[in-house]
């Protein structure tokens, strides 16, 4: 069996209504970044059918955000034949092995201690940074932290299950306006953490 036939057997349907469903997912992503720390939910009717290894919110965001102009980097856990075949088919996105060239990256929680190599944008074009899609088992259950910054009225209390190493990595790569925007995804829920959000640790300001 040649490669084309092999990947054809892995293909499965994406959004039932490609235009409206990707617009709804995009809207949820916008709201997530505009209101950091607030959980957004996708309705099950507007999420794509299950793709092995991806949560429905991750899958929906991939279909809504990725296209031929957005090279994507996959963490080893997501670098499966089925995910490769379906993302390439439905999004047309190039899959790169080098983090530096990626516009989006799909990560799981085992990768969060090392965010080296991702593009932070530059002072003239900070928007060219790499956006991280981080799939977590849940959006709760970790240490509670207060977030503040644009889009947050006073403080949002968020308890994402993340290691300290992630916050240190994020801090070390946050050189406004350069930096990394992150979506956290679990099940059909998502939460945004833009570079402009300050995370207050105990004793912080």
């Amino acid at each position, binding site marked *: *069996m040649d490669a084309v036939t092999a990947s054809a057997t892995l*293909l499965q*349907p994406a959004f039932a209504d*490609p235009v409206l469903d990707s617009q709804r997912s995009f809207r949820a992503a916008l709201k997530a970044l505009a209101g950091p720390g607030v959980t957004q939910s996708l309705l099950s009717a507007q999420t794509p059918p299950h793709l092995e290894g991806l949560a429905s919110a991750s899958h929906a965001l991939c279909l809504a955000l990725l296209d031929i102009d957005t090279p994507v980097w996959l963490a080893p856990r997501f670098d499966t034949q089925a995910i490769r075949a379906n993302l390439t*088919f*439905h999004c047309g996105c190039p899959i790169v092995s080098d983090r530096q060239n990626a516009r989006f990256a799909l990560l799981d929680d085992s990768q969060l201690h090392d965010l080296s190599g991702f593009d932070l944008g530059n002072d003239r074009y900070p928007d060219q940074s790499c956006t991280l899609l981080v799939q977590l088992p849940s959006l709760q259950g970790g240490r509670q932290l207060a977030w503040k910054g644009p889009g947050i009225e006073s403080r949002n209390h968020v308890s994402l299950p993340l290691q300290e190493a992630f916050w240190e990595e994020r801090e070390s790569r946050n050189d406004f306006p350069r930096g990394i925007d992150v979506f956290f995804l679990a099940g059909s829920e998502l939460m945004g953490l833009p570079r402009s959000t300050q995370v207050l640790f105990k004793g912080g300001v």
Partner: protein
Amino acid sequence: MTATTAYTPDAAQSVRQHWFGVLSRTHRADLAPHEDALRDVEYRMIRAPEIGMTLVRGRMGGSGAPFNVGEMTVTRCVVRLADGRTGYSYLAGRDKAHAELAALADAHLQGPQQSHWIRELIEPLAQAQAVRRARQQAETAATKVDFFTLVRGEN
């Protein structure tokens, strides 16, 4: 697949290219008589028929510098039969039902009934297209004008 198998990717590919070309030149009415036979199978959409644009490029005389001829409407569709075969179609125009039928035809043509479908569907269509093309070429040839310049008498 072992090296001893008679399967050669190039031959299979050119056969498929042939039926793909024939299907892409069909009209909706050409496939209509086969509609019931084509749909008589369990299938689902991998990519429901969708309409888009594609840029057509050409080369003057086939060998000149490439230039953009213009954009054309294309409808594409991908179906999966219950046994796993995947059929693709890319057609000019905006007829979604036509694209679905052509994708089903591609899926059927990859199966065990391939020779049946080639005999029943592809060969008659290819012949009809050849006749259509020959007639159009003959009509066009009748309008051909040979330009020539008479030698001017200079004395």
